[in-house]
């Protein structure tokens, strides 16, 4: 049964990308375990505003685990201690009365801090812009059932497409690698006949962009897979490597 708990928060505060940050400690009493982690932060911010202080800046939007906007390193884990959830779906019942909770932004060279817990993840968009699409314009498309697709392939493509682009994979990786993110998109499109046509070009372009933006290499530690809120599998990385090698062999 959910009850109310008292907690201590250690929250990373940082004014801007170039400024020095530090942890601030806050006490919060009577937090309902039925509330989500972000609702708990709302309560903290309400308290700060009422004290005339600046609230903690953090990214969030849909609060149902699908937009990928929320982030946060909680007690050393991207999206906190629960599995297969985003921070907005993490509930306070996962914490005990009297707990001390450490909250940090994503720590990754690819994601500079904007303020407090808010980071810039535009690098992920740039990787998609480099090739994460099928090059078709609007209109003049054959009937949707013109090309049958084996259910198995469609399901695997959907597994990969479940990625929400939150950045937890790169944040969790000791090398700061974005391979899980890149491989999910490459896999989704390579598995479908519509995307297969450009598969080689896509794999090369996206990997090149990822390297250019300063993301590290994959050394198969699997921490990305363990922390991914959508449980995207590292078998996608294997598929990306195959696509990439095949593309390079064609050069």
């Amino acid at each position, binding site marked *: 049964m*959910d009850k109310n708990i008292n907690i201590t928060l250690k929250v990373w505060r940082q004014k801007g990308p170039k400024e020095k940050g530090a942890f601030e400690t806050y006490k919060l009493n009577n937090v*309902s375990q*039925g*509330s*989500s982690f972000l*609702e*708990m932060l*709302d*309560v903290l911010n*309400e308290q700060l*505003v*009422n004290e*005339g*202080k*600046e*609230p903690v*800046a953090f990214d*969030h*939007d*849909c*609060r*149902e685990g*699908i*937009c*990928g*906007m929320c982030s946060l390193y909680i007690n050393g884990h991207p999206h906190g201690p629960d599995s297969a959830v985003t921070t907005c*779906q993490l*509930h306070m*019942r996962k914490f005990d009365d009297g707990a001390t909770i450490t909250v940090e932004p994503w720590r990754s060279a690819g994601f500079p801090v*904007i*303020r407090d817990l808010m980071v810039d*993840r*535009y690098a992920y*968009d740039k990787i*998609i*812009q480099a*090739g*994460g699409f*099928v*090059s*078709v314009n*609007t*209109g003049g*498309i*054959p*009937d*949707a*059932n013109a090309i*049958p*697709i*084996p*259910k198995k392939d*469609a399901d695997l*493509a*959907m597994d990969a*497409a479940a990625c929400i*682009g939150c950045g937890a994979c790169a944040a969790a990786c000791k090398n700061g690698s974005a391979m899980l993110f890149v491989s999910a998109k490459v896999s989704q*499109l390579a598995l*479908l006949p519509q*995307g297969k046509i450009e598969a080689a070009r896509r794999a090369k372009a996206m990997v090149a962009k990822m390297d250019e933006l300063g993301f590290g290499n994959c050394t198969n530690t699997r921490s990305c897979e363990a922390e991914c809120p959508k449980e995207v599998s590292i078998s996608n990385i294997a598929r990306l490597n195959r696509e990439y090698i095949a593309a390079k062999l064609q050069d």
Partner: protein
Amino acid sequence: MTQINSKIPEGPLAEKWKNYKDHQKLVNPANKRRLDIIVVGTGLAGASAAASLSEMGFNVLNFCIQDSPRRAHSIAAQGGINAAKNYQNDGDSVYRLFYDTIKGGDYRAREANVYRLAEVSNSIIDQCVAQGVPFAREYGGLLDNRSFGGAQVSRTFYARGQTGQQLLLGAYSALSRQIGLGKVKLYKRHEMVDIVKIDGRARGIIARNLVTGKLERFAAHAVVVATGGYVNAFFLSTNAMGSNGSAAWQCYKKGAYFANPCYVQIHPTCIPVHGESQSKLTLMSESLRNDGRIWVPKKKEDAEAIRAGQLKPTQIPEEDRDYYLERRYPAFGNLVPRDVASRAAKERCDAGFGVGNTGLAVYLDFADAINRLGKKVVEQRYGNLFQMYEKIVDDNPYETPMMIFPALHYAMGGLWVDYELMTSVPGLFAIGEANFSDHGANRLGASALMQGLADGYFVLPYTIQNYLADQIQVPRFSTNLPEFGEAEKNIQDRINHLMNIRGKRSVDSIHKELGHIMWEHIGMARNAEGLKKAIEQLKALKQEFWTNVRIPGQGDDLNIELEKALRLADFIEIGELMAHDSLDRAESCGGHFREEYQTPEGEALRRDDHFPYVSCWEYQGDNQDPVMLKEPLDYEFVVRQQRNYKN
């Protein structure tokens, strides 16, 4: 009095859109390069429009408030998207999709618009498949469908419970391609705070850079607003935290009519409120009603024992359960439209049969489906929704029935647009949920995705050319023009004013109070007395906000409280307009239920002789009552009937 011109083309219903396209003006490729279009928003409508316009050769400036265009709230749509493909051979057709949508909207939408929507629906599915959207498929490799509320055919295409995500990522990938090619310029973490008009036409916007806090000016030949709906005025809704009505509201204040603000949708299947710190409500997809059965206890004492925690739902024998939707609406059962299902839940809870510790919940039960199909099939169909439910409520829906309750979900009302999707301000267009055009008084499930993409991929890219064809001689505007300066100064003054109030109350505390007023008086059931009271209360709340809000930090810096305050200021005024419109519309239709107007069985009583029109509200200035103009809804092709989902 101003006449409303909806510019509906002549001719038989099925030929109007073709006739329009055959005769509209076009812009040639060389001239497209000389024309700039601002698209505000990157949801299904905004992203699909920005991508399509750019592919055609226009220069596009695209804005989103989030850190990436992929975050727009369209992403949260779960269940599916409708199209009249008739792949299931179950009798579907363009006409039937049109008819279901008109009927579902309680005969308060434009026939010509809805027919066009049904007509282009099939192209949307083709387009999405070509982009690599992984729709659900049958073992034979062809696309699968399921059924949704308000229809007797299976016409809904879906990608597990993440259809909105997959469609948005499809549009986002098309948009990303154009950004990569340098043809769309993207401004992320930018919020439109005003429209700039020059000689009566929309020629640009002022946007606030949410990272630096600075105001920035942008000019273009036309402006497209695709900024979604305004139901966060209720504080608690299924919308994202950042979803807001402010961009549309600035358009209204610059002369665009606001149409049917009272039509908002309350979704029947949401997870009930848990407590005071609740920040939003989570939707459980309508697709669950395909297999889930909705019930409450038949006996009041059972309901009371459940509320007290003394009885579990699984202990209630079959004969003591009231499957009230199946009882009241045998023909559609659990798949009645959303407005009907929501009101029926409220009726049972008000009568004392509600469950959960608050009594504000009903059961959605999958026991029968699990018996019939096996747990594995149920898991395949709804696994991610069940997981989501369990994480939030800490209860296993495979074993205990889900608890659900209605919540605010979608705005059918919005900026008035003509057949070309242009507002009453020349050069200002509104698409997707931001406009009012296609859903009448109630939207059917899986039709929002359809409308957003129809507008963005297949309607606006045509109709905007009819406007821009006259603009090819117009050179680019300088943002140094006095019109830009004046607009920027107005918003700067507003920000300074807010920062200087230095009152005692947080933005959220006032927003919650707004939500209570809205839910109490302008929610699922409305009456004249309550609406008049709401108007008084909103006036007082507006005063409280403008004298007692407290915003820490600086106006010209990243300031999350200021962002919320600017939106809340508009939400309060949107609430006022909703109250006026609800009061004016002395009938019940779709999502708008006036208690004074119901049938003896408690169904919505429409009054076609008095209200067969679109309410178009025109702004008259601060502290002045808005004026209402009427666009008559002449039904040429469909005979209006009392909606019947019983037999």
